[in-house]
Structures are given as C-alpha cells and as structure tokens.
C-alpha cells in the first residue's frame, strides 16, 4: 500500500484533502453547495475538450472550471442564483457531450475522470497540484477576514466597504482552482462530497471559524486516507468511499449538534433564573455563529 508508485497518490491526495477542507469551509458557510457541485461537474467538459485537442488534462479542466465559475457569476447577476448555476452546468455538460462524441476516448477513461482513479496519479502531477493548492489556500488566507464577514453577515460587510460581488467572484475562482486540482484524484462527481461532508461536520463541533476550519481539514484528511486505503484493499472505486464517508461525517455532525442543542437547551432552562434574558441572548448569538 505504501510502495513506490503509491507515494505520489498519498501525497497528492493529502494536498487535495487540505484544500477541500479549507475551501469547503467557505462553501458550507456561504450555503454554496450547488456551486461546489456544478463547477467540478462542468469542468469535466474541459477534460473531454483537452483530450480532443491533445493538450494536458489539467489545463483543460482549469480553463473550463474558470469559465464555468465566471459564467455562474455573470448569469446570477441577472437572475436567480440556483437557476444560473443549473444553466451554466448544463451548458458545460452539453459541450462535454459534444467533445466526447468527437473524441475516441475509451469508456473506462471517462469513467475514471468522473469517479476518480486513485492509482492513476503519477509523480509528475505532484508539482502542478502543489502549485494550484498553494494558490488556493493563499487566496483564502489573504482574503480570510473579508470573505468570512461577507459570508456570515453580508450587510455588515457592505457597511465596512467589502464588495459582496467581488467576494463572490473571488470565492467562485477559488472553487474553480480547487476543482481543477481535485478532479483527477477523486473524480468530478465526488469532489464536492469532500468539500461538504467534512466542513459540515466541523461546523457542528465548534462555532469559532479558525478551529472549525482546522477541524474541517483534519476530517477531510482522515476521509481521504481511509478512502484510499479501503479502495486499495477492496479495489472498489475511491469515489464510493469518499461519498459514503462524507455522509457519515454529515450525519455525525448533525447528531453531535442535536445532542449539544439538547444539553445546551437543558442547561439554559436550568440556569434561566440566574442568567435571565442576557443568557438567552448569548446562547442565541452563539447559535447564529456570530463570534467572528
């Protein structure tokens, strides 16, 4: 499992998990699950186009992901966001279908692009993936505060001079970058499982943003490592394990939050006389995730 050819797989997968954990944290905060889902799936068209033109898949995926993200941004300025996302997605997929019909790609290769081929990572892929990952996390860390405020409290962000539209664009570009580096590893259809499950679980563990982000990265790493080991042992597609473990994370997070709410509610009821309304207010503020 840790022999020579698997080393690059472990390296790339770990990088992917860190990026998915960081970017996914903002995906969950902004309630942008559909975007995180549509950009990778649409970027699949880029892979098909790249194989048709005979250029590097990573470049094709990157270009398609960026175009898709910008398209979503452009369309959602003139209509509903979910409609814009759906339309951008289907246009990209339509183009993908066209490219596919022209190329002579074998079905198993397409299957691996969609669902991930963990053993197909070569050592030469480490450098570009690492660069993209650095760009992604760099952008997030650089714009951490404005991005966080505009995600949590759009009105306050506007008042402080943070342009909501610019932040949305930045967020979309980061998602596109994260997509193009995760696509070859976990596959187009399941990237977002990694971007949603771990951060959702992390968010129900703690309300504070930085520890939540850290927890999200750690959970994502655990999910990826377990998935690869299991895929290696069973020879089943890694996408299955990522999807299933993502759901387990989400369910655990929901369960944990419910228990906490139950206990918190009980404590609040017991301490009502002593703490009075200010206690209730504090509790409500914590629940609303306002402690930036």
């Amino acid at each position, binding site marked *: 499992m840790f022999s020579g050819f698997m080393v690059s797989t472990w390296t790339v997968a770990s990088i992917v998990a860190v990026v998915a954990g960081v970017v996914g944290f903002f995906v969950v905060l902004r309630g942008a699950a559909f975007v995180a*889902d549509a950009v990778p799936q649409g970027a699949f068209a880029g892979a098909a186009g790249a194989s048709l033109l005979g250029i590097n898949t990573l470049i094709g995926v990157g270009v398609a992901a960026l175009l898709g993200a910008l398209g979503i941004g452009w369309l959602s300025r003139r209509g509903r966001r979910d409609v814009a996302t759906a339309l951008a997605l289907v246009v990209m997929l339509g183009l993908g279908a066209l490219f596919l019909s022209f190329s002579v790609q074998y079905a198993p290769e397409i299957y691996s692009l969609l669902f991930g081929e963990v053993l197909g990572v070569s050592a030469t892929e480490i450098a570009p993936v690492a660069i993209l990952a650095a760009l992604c996390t760099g952008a997030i860390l650089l714009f951490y505060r404005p991005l966080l405020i505009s995600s949590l409290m759009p009105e306050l962000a506007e008042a402080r001079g943070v342009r909501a539209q610019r932040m949305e664009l930045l967020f979309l570009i980061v998602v596109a970058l994260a997509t193009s580096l995760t696509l070859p590893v976990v596959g187009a259809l399941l990237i977002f499982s990694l971007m949603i499950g771990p951060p959702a679980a992390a968010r129900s563990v703690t309300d504070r943003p930085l520890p939540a982000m850290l927890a999200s990265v750690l959970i994502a790493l655990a999910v990826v490592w377990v998935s690869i080991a299991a895929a290696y042992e069973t020879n089943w597609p890694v996408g299955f394990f990522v999807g299933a473990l*993502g*759901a387990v994370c*989400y369910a655990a997070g929901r369960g944990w939050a419910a228990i906490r709410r139950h206990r918190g509610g009980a404590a609040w009821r017991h301490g009502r006389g002593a703490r009075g309304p200010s206690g209730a207010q504090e509790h409500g503020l914590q629940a609303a995730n306002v402690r930036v």
Partner: protein
Amino acid sequence: MPDLLRLIVEPGFFFSEPVQVALIAGGIVAVVSGIVGSFAVLRGQSYAGHALADISVTGGSASYLVGISPLWGFVGVGVLAAGVMDMIGVQRPRGRDLATGIVRGTGLGLAALFLYWDTTHTSTTGATITILFGSMFTISSSILPVIGVFSVVALGIVAVLYRPLLLSSVAADLAAVRGIRVRLVGAMCLVAIAVAVSLSAMTIGAILSTALLVGPAATGLRLTSRPGLAMTWAAVIGLAATWLGVLLAYDSFYWPPEQHGWPVSFFVVTLIFLFYLLASPVGRRTARRVPAGRPGLAGG
C-alpha cells in the same frame, strides 16, 4: 419550396422509427418537466431537481446489476431519494442545499460502486456513458406507455395540489396561516419533481433532465408573472427545444466530421440556454407593464 423543406428536414426524418419514438418520448418528458419544473424554480429547488436526476442514475446502474427493468430502478431510487431529502430537512432554506448535496454525494458514491460492478462483472463498458448522457435515438417504443403513466402521476400530483402548492411556494407563512399543511405539500411536490426528473434522466439522460427542468421553467417565469401562463410557456419552450434538437441532431449526420451525428443533448441544451438569454429583455419589458400592487411572481 420542396427543395427548401428538404434542406431543413433531411429526407426520411419523419419515417424513421427511432426518430418518431424520440419525438414522442422527448416531447412528453419536455412538457412534464416544464410544468413540474416551474414549481422547482419557484421554490428554489433547482439543485434538488438536478441532484435527483443524478441520483436516479444510481437506480439505473443498480438495475443493470440486479437485472430488473431500468425504469423501476430510476423512478424507485429517485422517489426514495426525494423522501430522504425531505426527511433530513430540505424544506428548511438554511442548510437545504447542504442536505441535498450530502444525499447526492452518497447516491453518486453508490453509483460509482454499481457501475464498477456493472463493468467488471458483466461486460457492458458503455453503460456509464449511456446512463449518464443518455441517447434519445435508442429509446425502445415499448417503454412509451410506461412513460405516459408516470407523466400522468407527476402531472396529477401538481394538478391536485395546484393552489395550495402555489401559495406555499410563494408565501409559505400565509399558506400556513390558511391551514395548508406546507410540509406535506412540499414533500409531495418533491415527489412530483423526482418522478419527472427520473423519467427524463432515463429517457434522455441526466444532463438534459436538469436542462429541461430548470431552463424552460425559468424562461417562462421571466416572460410572465402569471403562474399558469408561465407553465404553458415552459412546456412550449421545452417542447420546441427538444423537437428542434432532435431535428438538428438528425441533420448533423451530414455535417463535418463526415457521417458522425452530433449529440442531441448538445443541441437541446444550447437551444434552452438561448431561449433563456433571449427572454431576459422581453421579460423586463412585460414586468414593467404589470400594474403596481398586483402580486406577481419573482422572475426567474
């Protein structure tokens, strides 16, 4: 004149059986998707619709494995997933997309596994592509009655619940005050969406399913603020895009590269997108004509 007609419609278009079946099946599915999709767009459930289409693919791949008719796999799993989505809280706006995404991720994970078993245990390598992208020209005519039955089911749910559904979609609080069981109505609407998209995912592929559900409905809601009229527009636009797409795909056999048809889904998606873009200036003009104070629907 015959020459011109011949230039547009390649000879043999209306006499080929695959084309006839594609026109009928695609037409039914387009109309159903347009009408049900209007509610999906109105309720902001485009993502749920898209996710259900993809998840029904899981059912399709499972049915290949078990050996039952794909139809039952598609519709059964689609409705099941709609139930799960409703259970874990898609009716709440906050965290709704998240729950949808989790259900979709799990469903696709299973699809990956089933397709892997399909391709290793039986030698149907093309199954992945067929299931995901669909091909209108390979629908068997024996499936048409079943498509009809499920279409009636989906349209029936929407027709019976029309008024309460509309009110709870536009103003949920008001609907609750009037004694409408918003939760139940929402769940039934999700079931109707699930039936409609799994039906279209099976016949015309998962891509077109989302396109037909969201695109024409959003265009219709842009064109008019009256719900009934918007639904009619959605059905007409979906139907037009589908039939034109089939026609163009049939013609494209003679386009470069030689003797290689372009995929139907590409044409239909492009047409739907063009209709949506064209509708925006028209919609703005009609929206201004609506007298102030009259409650209208928010445009797509």
